[in-house]
């Protein structure tokens, strides 16, 4: 009967998406699927991620997930992009299972960002 659709974490990230925006001239990925859109842009120096930003159109869980991803991986390494997995994110943000599809779009966008790095660096 009860219905509390958003965890505190989701609310916080949704209200203060500090990584919303774009990195001018960075590598980027864009995915549109499942009725949502995500654009990621990144500046990196060698293996180290310097700046990570997102733009997204979708439900609060998706927006919070994008923010969480950027906040978590910024200052990390490119390997973090490859190792990115939705399970920790879904648990931390308490994303309901029926929204897994949208979170998979984020996974796609992250992979696609990793691929973009390889494309630009080769």
């Amino acid at each position, binding site marked *: 009967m009860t*219905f509390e659709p958003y965890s505190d974490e989701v609310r916080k990230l949704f209200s203060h998406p500090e990584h*919303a925006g774009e990195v001018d001239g960075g*590598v980027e*990925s*864009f995915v549109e699927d499942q009725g949502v859109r995500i654009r990621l842009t990144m500046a990196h120096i060698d293996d180290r991620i310097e700046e990570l930003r997102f*733009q997204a*159109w979708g*439900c609060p869980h998706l927006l919070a997930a994008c923010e969480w991803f950027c906040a978590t991986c910024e200052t990390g390494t490119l390997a973090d992009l490859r190792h990115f997995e939705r399970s920790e994110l879904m648990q931390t943000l308490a994303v309901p299972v029926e929204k897994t599809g949208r979170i998979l779009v984020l996974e796609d966008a992250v992979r696609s960002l990793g691929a973009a790095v390889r494309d630009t660096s080769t």
Partner: protein
Amino acid sequence: MRDDLIYLDYAATTPLDPQVAELMSAMLKNDTSFANSSAVHIAGRRASVIVEQAAAQLARLLNCAPAELIWTSGATESNNLAITGAARYRTHRGKHLITMPTEHKAVADVFRALETQGFDVTWLSPDESGSLDLQDLDAAFRDDTTLVSIMYVNNETGVLQDIAAIGERCRNRDVLFHVDAAQGVGKLPFDLASLPVDLASMTAHKVYGPTGIGALYIADRPRCHVEPLYYGGGQQHGVRPGTLPVTLIAAFGLAAEIATSSMATDFEHVQALRERLWAGLQPIAGVVRNGDAENSYPGILNVSIDDIEGESLLLALEPLCVATGSACNSQNQEPSYVLRALGRDDALAQSAVRVSFGRMSTESEIDFAVERYRESVERLRAIAPGRAASAT
């Protein structure tokens, strides 16, 4: 209102009128009004007098006889009792029923259930403004049609149907006419002495009364019959048995009495608020108004907006309490079938927000809502990537 939220979801449920709250509190502390109104002893008879007074109050609002009213737990039950009860009572005459897909689920789902029970239902779609085309209705009648159910005020858009014209067509063909009047009773004139209506559903919590109490009007002239939904101790002529909730009934009665005297003022008030709200929202790029501006109850304004995701919009709007989709079932995130029927595409239907207000709403609440809506739209647009963004 508690200042940590702004309640603008009156179409889902209204706050209690302070006088109603006071009456209920007094009754809750009174030692005798709780009694079983069908008991013969003194306490029971006192309770029965309270019930009778409340029926008279509600009957005055509707201009009907008190004996034409049956107490139920709400409009959902009233709709079911009316529709299923009348359809079953009349099966000897036929099994064809007529309604619209834009009805509240407490009507539409009843017809869907009846379809699985051997009834044949014609679903008449509205025109772009949300209204029933009377020619469509004329064409839908069959020899075996027994019942038509059309709502008075749409709960999502406020759009009105022409109850008098629909009812006249039903009367001419000896077809029963049920009206889900949950959103209209106490807010707009609904005069059952002159309207050709056989059955009408209502619920106290849409008109500043408590939740858990509703009523069904069952016309006496011409006399209309319904089969009960359930059986028991014979209360209310067996049509709807169970110990009567005297306090709730008294509260509904008082809410009806207040509505009778304040309907005109309430109407002017919400009309002014809707104008103010629309004046504030209209300048926002991509805003679309859902439902006819003229032919609708002004306590509801439903707006969609281009390229904003509905769920995020709703969260961004907090602490505004407004509704998406059919507020009576907001857990369900599917795009509103009512807005789809008005011709809105998925995206517009999905971003629809219903702002509804009433007697206690204030200009400053409306101004807050406008401000919050603007900001939210701006913020979400700023975060969104352009559609034309180049993919890698």
